[in-house]
């Protein structure tokens, strides 16, 4: 096997030994290499948190911004240069908590980007508080009597909003996850991969073993174009379903923008048309 150009060798990785993020890093770089993505045309955008550090350990263009804001940044990048392959990646707290509003509206826009969410159902970087996806009853130093909120169901929300690609994967299943990641990156439109991963330091409930025992793939005859079936599967909790729940061909955000109708070049290649501005100014002489 040739060297994977997306792997950054020899860097000091800040994750705990055994962290599920290591597996995601391996699978993501492998998926990108398998798809033969052009390194010069690929951008990773992340927010804040342990998951958001992933581009630091890769050989890739990256924008590691603020907590919860990866999707607006990724949307701005994609709309400014549609030739780029854009992957927005962060944790469950970042994407579903701080960035919840952006998550909803990014799905509504449907830019052609891949949204990978490392879902470990806990806040790792701040040492173990509940996340939006933590289960009811999950005890933490901040929720000593257990979580009393209903967990956020990203797949059901995404399907309700008619996201164009909705999938769930588990980092412990390498082959299937690699396949799902490749499908998501290849998909034209907004693609969500809710990627289950254990936090070995702060989530003693949702461990590798727990995910293994509490997940199962969608039936072989699952039709990803059937929205009702996809929604029903997204509501299943015991076991949590894995696989590609939903797919829909939809117009892309960037394709519909008026600013790209006449002019197709990325914004950085466009010139100011002073002649046309001069004509516009003259329209103000009425």
């Amino acid at each position, binding site marked *: 096997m040739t060297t994977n150009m997306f792997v950054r060798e020899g860097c000091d990785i800040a994750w705990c030994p055994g962290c599920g993020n290591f597996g995601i890093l391996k699978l993501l770089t492998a998926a990108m290499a398998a798809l033969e993505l052009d390194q010069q045309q690929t951008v990773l955008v992340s927010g804040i948190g342990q998951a958001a550090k992933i581009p630091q350990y890769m050989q890739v263009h*990256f924008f590691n911004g603020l907590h919860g804001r990866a999707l607006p*940044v990724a949307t701005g990048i994609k709309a*400014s240069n549609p030739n780029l392959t854009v992957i927005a990646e962060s944790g469950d707290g970042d994407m579903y908590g701080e960035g919840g509003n952006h998550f909803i509206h990014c799905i509504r826009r449907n830019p052609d980007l891949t949204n990978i969410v490392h879902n470990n159902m806990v806040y790792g970087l701040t040492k173990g508080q509940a996340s939006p996806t933590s289960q009811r009853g999950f005890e933490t130093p901040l929720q000593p009597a257990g979580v009393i909120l209903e967990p956020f169901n990203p797949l059901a929300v995404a399907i309700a909003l008619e996201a164009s690609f909705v999938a769930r994967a588990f980092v412990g299943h390498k082959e299937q996850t690699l396949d799902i990641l490749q499908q998501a990156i290849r998909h034209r439109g907004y693609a969500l991969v809710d990627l289950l991963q254990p936090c070995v330091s702060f989530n003693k409930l949702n461990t590798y073993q727990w995910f293994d025992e509490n997940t199962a793939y969608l039936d072989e005859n699952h039709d990803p174009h059937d929205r009702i079936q996809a929604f029903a599967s997204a509501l299943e909790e015991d076991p949590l379903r894995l696989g590609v729940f939903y797919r829909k061909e939809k117009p892309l955000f960037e394709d519909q923008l008026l600013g790209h109708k006449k002019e197709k070049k990325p914004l950085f290649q466009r010139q*100011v048309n002073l002649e046309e501005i001069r004509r*516009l100014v003259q329209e103000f002489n009425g």
Partner: protein
Amino acid sequence: MRFKNEISIVLVGEAGQGIQTIETVLTRTLKAAGLHVFATKEFMSRIRGGSNSTTIRAASSPVRAYAEEIDLCVLLDGDAYSWIQERITPDTLVIGDPAVYDHLDELIPLPLADLAKQVGEKIYANAVACGFVIGLLGLKSALLEKTLEELFGGNQEVLDKNLRASRLGLEQGEATAKEKEWFCDLQTNPQIAGQLFLNGSEAVGLGALTGGCNFIASYPMSPSTGVLQFLAKYAERFGLVVEQAEDEISAINMGLGSWYAGGRAMVSTSGGGFALMGEGLSLAGGIESPMVIHLAQRPGPATGLPTRTEQGDLDLALYAGHGEFPRMILAPGTLEEAFECARLAFDLADASQSPVFILTDQYLLDSSYNVPELPLPAEPDEHHIVETSADYRRYALTESGLSPRGIPGYGQGLVCVDSDEHDEAGFITEDAEVRTAMVDKRLRKFKGLRSEQTVKHHLFGPTDYRRLLVGWGSTRLAIEEALARVGDPETAFLYSPQVYPLSEQVQEHLQGAQRLIVIESNATGQFARLIQRETGRQADACWLQYNGRPFSVEALEHRLRQEVTS
């Protein structure tokens, strides 16, 4: 009775009644007649009802500021009089429907409702009122008809009714002028008819387009929405990406994503919206991204007076964002400057890899007047983007503090930006030495901004002044006119659209003043504090107004006369 070489017309009515249309019809017609025209509006934060007004000044010489005095007041509904009462003097001609204002002795009757009904619906009262004003001033009916044709030409029936209504009004106006022996000898100049007529939002929008703006993401908020709408209107024609973001946080982050990918982005917002952008501003500082922020001020705190004006957000623009990083604030005072500042903001942001503010306010954005031309550049700005080499480092340490800015997809290198403290390649670090070097590097970029005076300052009045007035932003033209009216040989007015950093030349002017008076539309003298912080020179007096209304020429004139004679 004869009108002076200028006339001030105020029309008052309910929201939804079409004051905006009346303003458009009258300003166009007056300019077409060859008069200098200024218009500004004030309105309530509601869609229907309440009281809104427009003040239109038409004159033989340029008029560009808000004046309280009213020569001709047209009342369009029953509540209008009480709203405008304090600006009415014994010399004001008050026109209104006698059926509504039967108790007003001084009323010049114009049966608006009856005449409108003759044509069709109540809404044609607007055209009646416009016709009346044009008839009273003795201007040609053809000018008014041409304006109506331009505005309503798309719908023959509506146009015909407007023409009929305006003729009915015009006849009444002419008859009234004849009966009362009024005549108008305003000197006209045919060249003015061909000049540009625009408002502040349009000037900012045109400036942004000229500066190469090709991306705007924003959330609508008065009074900044006009700029967003202007750019949306021309998105296809100029290849501009326009997005209504879900919130201001998203808007500024989309903008930063755009700059990262090589776009020239701006956001347009007001104080409350900008409050949400604070973290994004800090991000721009940390990743050394250019950003253009149009911050249109309105009175706060919180939602304040949503449709009115104030200069209360200078401190916000100056101090927003955690951490220490350079920024620049431009505050235009004329439409030409609004155009110029908006245009320059893109090049300044791009060149300095820092956020640049265009600080305006409701009064400037909603005021319009004729300008001979806008200063279009001969050549478009050059972009400050480099093609990256394989060993490219986004944050390479340099003497100027500026690292060459690459973008993904252009060159061989990787463009890595990180909001955490980072090394030269963009990777996270907690190394103490690298941290210090990066802070120093970011702050070094500011030296260039501070030493150059990018936007020209102005000194009005004598150069050997004793007393120096200082204003900023939209107060400029009212102060200029008040100063001209008083004409004191010892008083000058210093004005710079570049309010931060203050250039060295401006600082020298300030040091030379024996008495320094700072004029601002806020309650605490924010610019006076900025001057003291930057130069050590404390203001001797601050003339402040924060009632949500613009300074009028008369109020400043009165204050200055008191000052001069004291």
